[in-house]
């Protein structure tokens, strides 16, 4: 994780607590707005029904509507980028400068697989595919299309990208940003990865507008025991808990445990 300097810990993340004998930190923030997208889950009402347990049809449009962008600008956006833009764009509305944290565990797997396939077939590589396959390509496109020059970070942080991204966002808030946009998204990887990738139930994107405040408290700590993989990716689990009105929950990823608390 870049840019999380000791200074930030001192000035903002400072509230140290003892958890299981290990010194840990607490960050607090507000989540002023959120947007989410998945095939068949587009409106807040769709997500509310999903959170209450109703089944949704993944067969609907596999790509979100980004017609707010001109066609010449849309053409380089992969499905992953379209999802990121669809949830992020409305949240950035009205902000002249908005730092962005982009988190995806698997990134542009369809692009990288296409490149690897061309390599295996000894075909020349597509310059477009190559330039857009890197993990920070989406934030680069975001910067170009919005004329946004604020600090932006792309992270790939295993299963707890949500929390690692919030740590990053909290550090940016501590440096004085009035708000930070956090975008989490995962694309369904090509079928060839099925044996290795088991944490993407369906393609999804979640955008959070993170602002200074006390609404949420998040603290990392060691997991008590080696835990089972979570039933849902953390981003979707957070959304489900939020929509169900759950005020306290824990996300555990391997040896790291994150305790979430919302001021009732």
């Amino acid at each position: 994780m870049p840019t999380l300097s000791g200074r930030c810990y001192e000035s903002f993340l400072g509230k140290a607590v003892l958890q299981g004998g290990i010194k840990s930190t607490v960050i607090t923030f507000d989540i002023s707005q959120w947007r989410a997208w998945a095939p068949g889950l587009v409106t807040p009402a769709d997500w509310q029904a999903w959170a209450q347990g109703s089944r949704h049809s993944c067969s609907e449009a596999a790509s979100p509507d980004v017609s707010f962008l001109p066609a010449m600008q849309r053409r380089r956006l992969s499905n992953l980028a379209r999802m990121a833009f669809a949830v992020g764009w409305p949240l950035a509305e009205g902000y002249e400068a908005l730092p962005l944290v982009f988190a995806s565990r698997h990134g542009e797997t369809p692009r990288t697989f296409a490149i690897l396939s061309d390599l295996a077939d000894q075909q020349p590589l597509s310059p477009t595919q190559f330039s857009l396959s890197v993990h920070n390509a989406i934030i680069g496109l975001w910067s170009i299309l919005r004329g946004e020059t604020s600090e932006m970070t792309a992270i790939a942080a295993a299963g707890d990208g949500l929390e690692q991204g919030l740590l990053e966002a909290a550090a940016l808030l501590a440096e004085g940003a009035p708000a930070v946009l956090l975008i989490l998204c995962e694309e369904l990887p090509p079928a060839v990865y099925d044996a290795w990738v088991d944490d993407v139930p369906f393609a999804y994107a979640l955008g959070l507008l993170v602002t200074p405040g006390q609404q949420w408290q998040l603290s990392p700590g060691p997991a008590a025991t080696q835990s089972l993989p979570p039933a849902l990716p953390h981003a979707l689990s957070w959304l489900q808990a939020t929509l169900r009105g759950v005020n306290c929950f824990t996300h555990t990823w391997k040896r790291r445990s994150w305790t979430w608390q919302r001021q009732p």
Partner: protein
Amino acid sequence: MSDPQQDLNRDLKQLIIDALGLEDIGVDDIDDQQPLFGDGLGLDSVDALELGLAIQKRYGIKIDADAKDTRNHFSSVAALAAFVTARNAA
């Protein structure tokens, strides 16, 4: 009766649309003389590389990205057609 020159122009336009993922644009929207880069169709340097690769694959023509006249060959559909015709005849 179809005109081979017009057919080639049309093929090149379709190649540009397919290779560069141009949405909402058809072959009839691209003029033979229209500049492809900058203020014309609005293509950029990554497009130039991608288009070079597509032409290489489709017509078996090796393109030297550093050659002085490459820029001219890529200026419009008509220029590209002339370039492809000349190289195929060579």
